[in-house]
Structure formats: structure tokens, C-alpha cells
């Protein structure tokens, strides 16, 4: 029968539909690539295939960076920094990216549940709230709310709630800056964290403050640090000295390392201060304190030479503007406040207050101290608590056994947890009312004085999990108790709060609110008091001596927050587990850091499993010899050894808290992390470490990550090692003669040999490339996770990582050139972000039998996954080893529902048996190219229109993407720098499209290809 007779248009369409569906089903070889959402009624803001962006605020840590969330078909697929945010300025750290894996974490609570006889029974929200209200009623005012640092409005609501129902609220955050705040109060009477203006400092000394890893705002600090420490075009460069017993990632970025004894920060700072003060600087009320210190006493206490102390003091005073930063969480010992005070005094006598160190008051971003928690625990143990509610915090894990939290908590009659996903504390709770993930909820934050950032839901709550924002729960419970708090939903409450703060002078609230949601922040200029606060006489007695340590072991234990897990919050994010730790480069499992000499003295080798024992407990953990730690110190990272935190966290690493006493530092009340000595004894077992470091940080004198002495800047580079010298050719009688190397400047494209065939006439195409400034790179690894999130890169798990099969398209190589833990000296550790170099003469291309990889007219080394047969010849022939292979179906086997919701629909999900590698974010390039084409602006997007994932998230702004062929592009400009080199290019003439700018050192770079 034909179209005309009989067959109806509708039937015809049906047939079409069916066959179409069939094609879709059969056509897709990989499961769970993307859920197809049929739109009957098109939701607003959603156009299939077009991304929608929402602003919000990151809750990964207390820094609260501004976020831009990219959503596709109603799913959040990528988080990026919000460029409008006055603190984070558009960058984001690795943890920030990993918050997506909390949103889609399959271990999240499926809904409200009540514990009956040890097992959890699902209930409705109705029942749950009724139960809670009833219990609170019967608790008769004995309610305890254990929270964590939250936005101002939420904190306000909590206080109001607790006030209404009777009881109290405490906050606990394992990573706290209480001692600094207390010291600032004592020294200047300002009850707030000082704000560091690193950008304008020229001489920076950190007494163990690890601002790259954690603290007030790692992203902002890195940005400022890069600005201060990186050599500028005038060949000027700020100096960074790190004084501490262990080189953290921050420390690895220093120009000099003063390996002082643990807990001797105060002595060194005061010694320096007294030398400077001796030269007439005003020490105010602390002159008497300083009088007790001099170069010798400082040198003795810190275990360094007098000369070092003097030199440091002189340069601190002369090479200004200078800035000193006090001990970080890793060195919170029993005299931490005193140490911070000493550092503030040093800053004061050097005249840094008001220049590089600002005391504006402003937000209270430091969590309230552990001492509050102590009393709360006593109250619970004493049976004075009827109902305890835990929100955000996970004290059962982040506090040592000896704190007695678990026991006390267990004795409380009714325990409520608002945890989004299971944790050690909620494992003991009677009622579980899962909070929403911050990407699904409302809120606000005040990153600094005069700035209010709003948090809004970027998508419908993930349907797998029946969650409810805790704010809403509190409001409804309050009204059930007959005392409504003036709003039905938290959204309403939030709006009211902001409306209340709203000043008519700022115009109509509604429009301003809308604007704020769009930009993500509201800034109202508040007038700063121009007066610089003076040092005040201390109102508290402080001892500046070395702190007391428990136990009689011969090694001091340092417990520091992990740059991947924080205090353990991120342990169930596989991206974080598989991200090589920026310092140790170890994935998944735990380790104890120990100086190689210490290890050798004990006959320990890398991978030997040892028992680290203190008087409070012990853990078994493999040894990782680290030249960047003093011989009398061992260090453990926080975040390991979870027991009830989810499939990826449980059993990975050890919980260092087991070794610590529960001590509150006086007077700040902060939790003491450097509290005890430990002994280390071998267990006789060994294990291989899951690291991606193939050469123990040694680049064997090869020009992989060369450097250049500051003194040589501006002298045309000269014959520096690793210089991109001319190519040489063998002459008849043997020996080499230089020849004029084409592609000596990458802008000269098409490269020699690459101008064949149809490529010759591609004059109107770009030559995409990268420039990476190694003097800016801090090795923080945010780019690695950003790349992983953007490009659907699967994680492989510990067992596969041990085999060397991790899939990252980018890795940060970390090479030690000079690290000396025995005395103060220059430090030279090089970071190199290694990714596909997009070679002009790519060795990987000609060997592929099926053209699965080839060179595009835009100079990109393309990889066509669907054409790949999997001979792995390309990977063998890649001198940079940046090609990774899908040994199994990682993308489908390792990524459970709903985590696959995070997959980026613009990027193919790779199947078993194919090779893959950096695509230079080709999907972003195409998007931009289509855009300019549609807008009739030619074919090549303008400079800066394309921002690749790694570049976008780099807090140090070390990565620049652009068109090398356009002489005015930023990247082409950078490539002209005398620091520019291309890895191994002068050896094998690969002519990479990725250019590096050498790290600049103060010391002369010693010979060879160091």
C-alpha cells in the first residue's frame, strides 16, 4: 500500500518513531552514557543540548568560594569558579570539583529513617518531623545542636531555633583557625581573622601556615601567592621562605626552607622580631618580651644557625613589604596561640600591619573552638542532654576516642542526624533526616566584610534521594512545637533575612535579589576604618616556649589536614581518592612520612608497614620516605581510616586521630594536632605504594622541568640547561653542527613536514596551543580533577592504580632538585603539569595502523576513540607517556548510578580497549567556533573566548590556552618569553604545541639538566 491510499500520517510517524527508538537502543554500545529526557512540556531554562549555568556557593570547606554550575538537561555536570566572586575570582580547588561526587553519591541516604533494633526503617518526612518535635518537647529544654560552620542566615536560624526550644548549639570543625583569631584579639583587640594581602608582599615567611591546602581561602591565597612569587616580565620575583619541620605542598613552593624544630615558631619569630626591634623598630608593649630573645636563643630553640636567624631578620625588614604567617593546623600545638601572637608581633615590628596584613574585623569564618565541644561532651556524658541533633559535623570520626564523644553521644536518649550521606556519627543516630546537598539547596555566605554570596539550588534534588533541607525541617519542627520562626520554608526565611538587611539606598530589593542570584554575590561597599590597630598589652598570660608533648617516643607526630580529604569529608569521593596526593603522589591508601635518614637508621624501606604508636593508640601504615621532613618528625594526613563513610572511603588509610589525645589549646580552645611523640616499629609486612611517581622525584638530569636563575633573566637566557637550543645535525666527520630548526618558534606553523596535502591551504585555521608557567604552578592538582570532571575520565581503583593504570589525562610531576632537612638552605622542587603535548611531529600518529590518531589542520593531535583497535603502539611511541588505555570497562563498571549523571554529554564515554588522552577540550573549541560562525565573526574565536577546563580551575592562573598562529594572542606572547621551552623538543624534534615557561630560582641553577 502507498502513502496516498490507506496509511495514515500518524501511523507513518509511529513507524518512524519506533524505528528511531530502535536505532537509539541498538546504536548505543555503552550503558548509562546519558539519560534521554523526553520533553512533553518543555521546562523553562532547559534547551536540550544547550548548557545552563547557575551561580552558587561552594560548601566544600570553610572558604566558601563562588561557584558557577554547568547544567545539561537539568543535571549538574560540572562546577567551576565564579569569576564575579571577589575572593575566589573564578578559580576552584580539586575538592570543589569533587563536591559533584557528593551530590550524586550512591551512598547517600535514600530518605528519612528511624533506627529500630539496630536496623534503619524508612519513614515519611511527616513521621520524622513529628517524632523529632515530640522528642524535643519531652526533652524539656535539654537540646544540643552540634553543627559546623554554616552561612550567616543558617547559623542565625540555628541559634533562633535552639533559643526557642531551649538548649544550646556548638560547632566543631577539625580544621580551625581559632588560635590565629585569639592571637589577633590579644594583640590588636580585633576578634577576627587577619586578612593576608600576599599579592603586594615581596618577602613572605610562613611558619607552617599551609595556605595552598586549607585555611581562610586557599584559592584566593594561591592567586595572591602566584602574583607575589612568580617572576614578572621585569624579572622581579618575590621571595618565599618556609619555616617548619615538614614541607607541606605550600612548603614545597618555597624558595628557601628553614627546617625548624617542631613548636619553635614562637622562638624564631620573637628572635627575628627582637633583632629588628633592636634596630629601633617599635615593639610596643612587647618590648620586654623581645628583650628575652636574641639570635642565639632563637637559633638554639629552632635548631638552626644564628646566622640564619640574623639573615632572615634583616631580609624580613629590608626586602619588604614583607609578611609572616603563623603556624597552620598541622602545627597546632599546646602553645599555638602564643606562636601566632609571636608572628603577629614580628609583623608589627616590621611594620606590615595595614600594609600586607589587614585587621578589618568582618566575618567570623573561624569555627568555634574545640573547648565548646568538650563541655558539650561532658554535658552528654552527664545525662543533661535529652535530644542531640548533629548537622554537618562528624565528631565520631574527627575526634579521638579519648575525647569520649562516642560514649557520651551513645548515652543521649534521642540522637538525630541531618547527614546527607552516612558517616560515623549518623551510624549511631536514632533518627536520620537527610539534608540536601548544597547544590540542591538555598543558603548564603559572607566570605569577607561587605560581600554576601547567595547559594541557590542548581537542579531539582536528585530523585534517588528523598532529602529535605535542614533549614526547612527546623522551621516546620518549630511550628509543630507551636512557636513558628516567621517563615514556612528556608527560602522564605533567607529572603526575609536579606530583605531585613536591605538598605533602600541600594535600590529595589527584588531587582537586587535577582541580580545577586545571577551574579552570585552582592557587594555593598562598607567604609573601612583607616586607622591601623596598634599592639595592645596581652590580657592573657602566654608562654612562648616549646610546647609540651605527651609520650616518650623519639619522634614528634604531626597530623595535618589532607589537601584532598580535608579532615575526611572528601574521603568518599573517588576523584579525591585517586588524585595523587600533591605531596606524596600516593593514591587511595595511607602512608606515614619519614625522613629517609630516619627510615634508614631503622632499617625501613619504602612500603614497609610500620606500627606508629603513641600513649593513646597505634596505627599500622606503610612508610613513605620523604626528604622534606625533619629527621625527628613523622607526619600523618587526616581523612583516612573511615569505618562508616561509604564504599570508597571505608578501610582506605588510617585515622591519625587514634594517636592523639583530646586536648584543647589554651587560651584559644582549638584542638591540638601536634600533641604527642610516637614510636615507630616495623611489622615485617610490606606493600607496594600506589603512586604515579616512577623515579622517586628524580628527573635524572633530563630537561623535563628545567629552571632558570633570576640573575639570568633579561640576558636572553644564554646557554641554559634545558634551553630550547637549535636542532643539530651530524656532520660528515662526526660531531654535531647546529642547523636552523624550523618550528623553533611554535608560531611558525605549519611546522616543517606538517604542511602537506589539504592542510596547506588551511591558512584561515588556528594553531591551538598552551603555555604553562611553571613559576606560577603550585602543584595543587586542581587542574587534574577539573580535567577528570570535564572529560568523563573514570577512576580505576587502588588495585588498578597499583598496576599503573590510572586514567588521568593530566598529571603533576614533582621533581626534587634540592631538598635539605638538616639545615636552612635554598629549596628547589619543580612542578610540571604533564598532558598531551600535541606535537607537530607526533610520534604517536604514524604508527597507528587505522588512523585512530592524526593531526588536525588546527594543529591538534586528535584521538578518534571509535576507530581505535587497541594496539597501544601510540602509547609506546609517546615520549611523554600521556596516553592512557581503557584496560576494562572502567566507565561503566566503576561508575554506579546515579554518579553517571555527572557525565558530560559533550564528551564521548570511552569503552573497553581504546586509547584516550587530552583532547585540548576540543568540544569547548568547537562550541566556541560554532558560536563565532553563527554570529558571523569568521571562523576563529577571539583570544580568551575559549577557556579549557584545566586553565579555568587553575588558582595560580598558570595555564593559558590560545591560538599560537595569532601573534597578538596571549599564548603567542608568552611563548616569545626567554623562559619558554618545550619538553624534550631539542632531543627528538617533536615540536610540541604545549609550551612551558621555566621556573625561576634565586640560586644559580647547578649544572647539567637540573
Amino acid at each position, binding site marked *: 500500500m502507498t502513502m496516498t491510499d490507506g496509511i495514515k500520517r500518524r501511523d507513518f510517524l509511529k513507524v518512524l518513531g519506533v524505528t528511531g527508538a530502535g536505532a537509539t537502543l541498538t546504536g548505543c554500545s555503552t550503558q548509562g552514557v546519558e539519560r534521554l529526557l523526553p520533553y512533553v512540556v518543555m521546562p523553562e531554562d532547559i534547551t536540550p543540548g544547550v548548557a545552563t549555568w547557575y551561580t552558587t556557593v561552594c560548601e566544600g570547606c570553610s572558604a566558601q568560594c563562588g561557584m558557577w554550575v554547568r547544567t545539561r538537561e537539568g543535571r549538574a555536570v560540572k562546577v567551576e569558579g565564579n569569576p564575579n566572586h571577589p575572593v575566589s575570582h573564578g578559580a576552584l580547588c580539586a575538592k570543589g570539583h569533587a563536591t559533584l561526587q557528593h551530590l550524586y553519591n550512591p551512598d547517600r541516604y535514600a530518605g528519612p529513617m528511624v533506627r529500630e533494633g539496630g536496623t534503619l526503617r524508612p519513614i515519611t518526612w511527616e513521621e520524622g518531623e513529628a517524632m523529632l518535635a515530640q522528642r524535643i518537647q519531652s526533652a524539656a529544654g535539654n537540646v544540643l545542636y552540634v553543627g559546623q560552620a554554616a552561612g550567616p542566615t543558617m547559623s542565625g536560624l540555628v541559634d533562633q531555633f535552639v533559643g526557642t526550644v531551649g538548649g544550646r548549639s556548638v560547632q566543631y570543625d577539625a580544621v580551625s583557625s581559632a588560635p590565629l583569631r585569639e592571637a589577633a584579639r590579644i594583640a590588636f583587640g580585633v576578634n577576627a581573622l587577619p586578612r593576608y594581602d600576599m599579592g603586594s608582599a615581596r618577602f613572605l615567611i610562613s611558619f607552617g601556615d599551609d595556605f595552598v591546602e586549607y585555611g581562610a581561602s586557599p584559592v584566593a591565597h594561591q592567586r595572591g601567592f602566584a602574583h607575589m612569587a612568580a617572576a614578572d616580565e621585569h624579572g622581579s620575583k618575590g621571595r618565599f621562605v618556609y619555616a617548619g619541620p615538614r614541607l607541606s605542598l605550600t612548603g614545597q613552593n618555597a624558595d628557601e626552607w628553614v627546617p625548624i624544630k617542631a613548636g619553635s615558631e614562637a622562638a624564631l619569630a620573637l628572635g627575628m622580631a627582637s633583632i629588628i626591634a633592636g634596630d629601633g623598630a617599635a615593639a610596643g608593649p612587647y618590648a620586654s618580651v623581645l628583650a628575652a630573645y636574641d639570635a642565639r636563643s632563637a637559633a638554639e630553640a629552632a635548631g638552626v644557625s644564628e646566622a640564619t636567624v640574623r639573615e632572615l631578620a634583616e631580609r624580613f625588614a629590608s626586602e619588604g613589604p614583607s609578611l609572616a604567617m603563623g603556624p597552620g593546623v598541622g602545627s597546632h600545638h599546646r602553645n599555638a596561640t602564643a606562636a601566632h601572637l609571636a608572628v603577629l608581633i614580628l609583623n608589627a615590628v616590621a611594620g606590615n600591619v595595614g600594609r600586607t596584613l589587614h585587621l578589618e574585623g568582618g566575618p567570623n569564618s573561624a569555627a568555634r573552638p574545640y573547648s565548646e565541644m568538650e563541655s558539650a561532651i561532658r554535658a552528654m556524658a552527664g545525662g543533661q542532654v535529652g535530644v542531640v541533633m548533629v548537622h554537618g559535623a562528624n565528631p565520631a570520626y574527627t575526634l579521638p576516642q579519648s575525647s569520649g564523644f562516642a560514649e557520651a553521644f551513645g548515652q543521649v536518649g534521642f540522637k538525630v542526624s541531618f547527614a546527607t550521606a552516612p558517616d560515623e556519627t549518623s551510624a549511631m543516630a536514632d533518627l536520620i533526616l537527610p539534608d540536601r546537598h548544597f547544590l540542591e539547596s538555598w543558603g548564603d555566605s559572607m566570605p569577607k566584610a561587605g560581600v554576601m554570596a547567595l547559594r541557590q539550588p542548581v537542579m531539582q534534588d536528585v530523585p534517588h534521594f528523598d532529602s529535605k533541607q535542614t533549614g526547612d525541617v527546623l522551621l516546620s519542627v518549630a511550628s509543630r512545637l507551636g512557636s513558628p520562626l516567621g517563615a514556612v520554608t528556608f527560602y522564605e526565611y533567607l529572603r526575609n533575612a536579606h530583605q531585613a538587611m536591605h538598605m533602600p539606598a541600594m535600590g529595589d530589593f527584588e531587582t537586587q535579589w535577582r541580580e545577586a542570584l545571577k551574579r552570585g554575590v552582592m557587594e555593598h561597599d562598607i567604609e573601612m576604618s583607616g586607622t591601623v590597630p596598634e599592639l595592645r598589652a596581652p590580657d592573657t598570660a602566654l608562654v612562648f616556649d616549646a610546647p609540651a608533648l605527651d609520650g616518650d617516643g623519639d619522634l614528634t607526630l604531626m597530623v595535618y589536614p589532607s589537601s584532598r580529604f580535608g579532615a575526611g569529608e572528601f574521603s568518599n569521593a573517588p576523584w579525591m581518592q585517586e588524585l595523587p596526593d600533591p605531596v606524596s603522589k600516593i593514591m587511595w591508601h595511607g602512608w606515614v612520612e619519614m625522613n629517609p635518614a630516619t627510615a634508614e637508621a631503622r632499617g625501613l624501606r619504602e612500603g614497609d608497614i610500620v606500627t606508629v604508636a603513641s600513649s593513646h593508640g597505634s596505627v599500622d601504615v606503610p612508610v613513605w620516605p620523604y626528604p622534606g621532613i625533619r629527621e625527628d618528625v613523622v607526619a600523618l594526613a587526616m581523612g583516612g581510616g573511615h569505618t562508616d563513610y561509604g564504599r570508597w572511603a571505608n578501610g582506605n588509610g588510617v585515622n591519625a586521630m587514634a594517636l592523639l589525645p583530646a586536648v584543647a589549646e589554651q587560651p584559644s580552645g582549638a584542638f591540638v594536632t601536634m600533641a604527642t611523640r610516637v614510636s615507630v616499629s616495623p611489622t615485617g609486612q610490606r606493600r607496594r605504594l600506589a603512586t604515579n611517581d616512577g623515579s622517586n622525584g628524580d628527573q*635524572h638530569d633530563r630537561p*623535563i622541568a628545567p629552571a632558570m636563575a633570576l640573575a639570568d633573566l633579561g640576558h636572553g637566557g644564554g646557554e641554559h640547561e634545558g634551553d630550547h637550543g637549535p636542532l643539530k645535525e651530524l656532520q660528515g666527520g662526526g660531531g654535531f653542527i647546529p642547523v636552523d630548526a624550523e618550528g623553533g618558534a611554535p608560531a611558525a606553523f605549519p611546522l616543517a613536514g606538517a604542511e602537506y596535502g589539504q592542510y596547506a591551504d588551511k591558512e584561515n585555521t588556528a594553531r591551538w596551543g598552551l603555555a604553562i608557567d611553571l613559576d606560577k604552578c603550585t602543584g595543587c592538582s586542581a587542574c587534574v580533577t577539573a580535567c577528570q570532571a570535564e572529560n568523563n575520565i573514570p577512576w580505576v581503583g587502588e588495585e588498578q592504580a597499583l598496576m599503573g593504570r590510572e586514567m588521568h589525562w593530566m598529571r603533576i610531576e614533582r*621533581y626534587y632538585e634540592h631538598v635539605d632537612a638538616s639545615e636552612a638552605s635554598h629549596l628547589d622542587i619543580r612542578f610540571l603539569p604533564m598532558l598531551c603535548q600535541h606535537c607537530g611531529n607526533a610520534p604517536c600518529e604514524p604508527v*597507528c595502523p*587505522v588512523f585512530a590518531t592524526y593531526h588536525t589542520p588546527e594543529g591538534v593531535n586528535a584521538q578518534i576513540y571509535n576507530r581505535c*583497535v587497541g*594496539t597501544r603502539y601510540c602509547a609506546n611511541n609517546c615520549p*611523554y607517556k600521556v596516553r592512557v588505555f581503557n584496560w*576494562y570497562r572502567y566507565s561503566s563498571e566503576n561508575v554506579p548510578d546515579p554518579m553517571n549523571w555527572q557525565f558530560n554529554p559533550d564528551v564521548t564515554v570511552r569503552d573497553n580497549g581504546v586509547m584516550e588522552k587530552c583532547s585540548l577540550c576540543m568540544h569547548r573549541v568547537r562550541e566556541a567556533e560554532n558560536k563565532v560562525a553563527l554570529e558571523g565573526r569568521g571562523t576563529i574565536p577571539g583570544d580568551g573566548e575559549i577557556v579549557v577546563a584545566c586553565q579555568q580551575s587553575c588558582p595560580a592562573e598558570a595555564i593559558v590556552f590560545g591560538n599560537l598562529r595569532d601573534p597578538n594572542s596571549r599564548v603567542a606572547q608568552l611563548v616569545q618569553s626567554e623562559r619558554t621551552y618545550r619538553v624534550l623538543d631539542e*632531543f627528538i624534534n617533536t615540536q610540541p604545541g604545549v609550551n612551558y615557561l621555566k621556573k625561576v630560582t634565586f640560586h644559580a641553577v647547578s649544572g647539567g639538566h637540573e
Partner: protein
Amino acid sequence: MATATKERGALTHPDVQHLSDVNRDVLKALGRPGKGWWALLSLCMAGMGLFFAAWGWQIYRGIGVSGLMSPVGWGVYITTFVFWVGIAHSGTLISAILFLFRAPWRQSVYRIAEAMTVFAVMTAGLFPLIHVGRIWHAYWLVPYPNSRFLWPNFKSPLVWDVFAVTTYFTVSATFFFLGCIPDIAAARDAAKGLRKKLYSLISLGWRGTDSQWHHFGKAYIFLAALATPLVLSVHSVVSWDFAMSIVPGWHATIFAPYFVAGAIYSGVGMVITLAVPMRKIFGLEAYLTTKHFDALAKLCLLTSMIVLYAYLSEFFIAWYSGEEIERTAFWNRLFGTYWWATWTMLVCNGIVPIMLWFKRVRYSIPALFVISIFINIGMWFERYVIVVTSLHHEYEPWAWGIYRPSIYEVSILIGSFAWFGFWFLLFTRLLPPVAIAELKEVLPPPLRKQAKEAH
């Protein structure tokens, strides 16, 4: 007529009197197989079970069941591939080249050697398939017209391989079969029942008429003439899989001759390994005399010296180049993680063959057998050293890594010997193991004159 007999120097035993004795002795081998043969066959079939089980699981689960990783993307599979291709070489070499040079000792051994060649290529051919990540797409290496007109990349040594190995297999198999035809006819005339039917079929109705012999002779010479450069080319192409790359330890101009020599060395070694037991089992002492083994041993000695020279010159050039990365690569070969593999290779291929300088060793069948085993081991490790030690320690220190073969790779390696053995055992029972017609060619022809004088 007397002149006709002069040029003939048969290397056979004196008690082979009459032409028909050859049929008697050789065809005896095709008789009822003994227990030993069945035992070996079942052993091989068990091995094949292991082989296909391991391979099947790898296809189902993913190539990850191997120990391969980054940076070592090639391992036991490629090693074994090159090993078997190497084994395949001496067959056609002994057969074709010695035929063209009229080497008098060729006739007795070449049938075994050619059979070995054909089966070795059949084994080698499996390994690229075992090795790739997506075997279900392996046919993409073959140039066939498809809807999108995607053609293979003829610049890639792997595509050269596809052509070289398939050509080699086709030509060797043809050459082998052609040589068999007259002997199958002989077997046919001696056989009864089913075997007779089978032989009549595969002997293509050969009758040994003058015209058949005439064209047969010419065709045989031309095939030999074509096969000879082919033998040399195939392993050169295989060597370019490595030499065409930029991997330190692979990128060397010496590779082609070095690999060819190695291939002949290992091939002849394997011929000895196979010929010794066959000689015993089928009582072919009259045809496989110590003179033949002496000749084979000399060939081993020559090629072993070439191979050793290649090893040494590699190390020397690495040092002489002054190229730090090249030097490190070879230093690492001798004293790095895989030192044991390198030293196994050097001892088996460089030291052990020195014994072949002694006539007494060359004439002692047991000694030769033992040495040939060493040769096989040594040559496998040579390829392992080239593939693995070069890859695990390349340009980028950060990316250095250690490769540990998995149980699956080992199973497939062992299974490949079973697969080879299976076919070879079938051969020994179905085809005359020694070239009947050609042996007669070198026997003194029966002459009436002499017979008369004898009486």
C-alpha cells in the same frame, strides 16, 4: 650414463640400497600411532584448552586481565609473537635458500622444517589478535572497502606486518604443499581404504609423468626464488615494528639484519629440537644422519655469532653516542629491574653456542638437543628484553614503571606451544616426514649395466 651419477652426493646411510627402500622406511612413519603419540596429542589438547580458556576470558573481561600497563603497553604477547615468527624462519630458509644453493644435506630435513614454518606462522598469527584491545575490530587493519572509505594507514609498521605475515604464510604453505604432492602420491599408492581416498584427493591425481615433473621442477625453483627474499623481508618488517619507533632501545638501524639472524638462529634451534625425537621415534637414522645435525649446528654457530655481535654493538653504540637517555636505557637493560632477563638472553645466545665450536659436540645428538633448548629459551628472552626493558624505562622519568606478566599471559604463552605441537603431531602421522622423491634424486640411480657387472 655413468656421468649422470657423479654429481650426486647422497648424505644417506649405506644400507639404503634401492629406491623403494625410501618409501618403505619413510611411509613406515605413517603407520599406526603408538601410545606415546596419543599421550603427546592429549597433552597438547589439554594445553589448547588452557590457551582458549585464558583467551576467551580475556576477550570477555577485557585486555586488563593481562599484566600490561602504562608505560609497558606491549609484553608477553608481542614477545611471543616475534618468537614464533622467528621460529617460522629457518623452515623456508633451509628449504628455499639451500635448495637454490643445491646444499646436498637439505633433502632429509626440509620437510620437517617447512612443516614447522607453517605451524609456527599459524601460531604467531594469533598473537596480534590476542594482543589488541578490541579484537572484534581487528579486521580494520585489513584494507577492505567500507561505507566510509576508511583505509588502513600504510605508513604504520603494523600494517606492513599484516601484509608481510599473511604473504609469508600463504607462500610458505603453498611451497610446503607443493613439495608434498609427489610424496602424498607415493603414500597414496601404498595406502588402503580411507587414507587412500584422502591421499588421492590431496595428491591432486599426481602420477609422476614427465610433463608433471618438468613443470613441477620449474615451479618449485621459482617459488624458492620468491621465498628467499621473503624470508629475509618478513623478519625485517617485524623488526621495524620496533625500529620505526623512537623508543630508546628500539630505534636502531641494526634491527633488520639483527632480527633476521636471530630468527634463523632460533628457527634452526627449533628444527634440532623437533628433529631429534622424530629421528628416534620413526627410526629415520638412515636419513637424518649426524652429518645433517653437524650442518644445522654450524648454521646455529654462525647466526649465534651474528646475534652476539648485534648485542655488543648495541651496547657499544649506546655508549659511543654519548646520548644520556640511550645510555641509561642500555645500562638499565644490564643492571636494571629486568637484569635477569638480559643475562639469560646473553648466556643462552652468546655463551652456550660457543660449545658448537667443538666437533664432538656437533656430532653428539643429545648435546645438540640440550643446546637447542637453551637456544629456544634464549631467543624468547631476547624478545622479552627488547620489548619490556625498553618500554619500562623511557624518556620521561616520572612515567617509568614495572610490568609483571599475569597468569593469563603465561597460560597463553604455554598454550601456544600446545597449539603448535597439536598441528605438528598431526603432520607427523598424515604426511611423509621426509621428502621421498627428493631423497631419491640424490640416491645413485639403478643402472642395468652395474646390475649386470654385479652378477
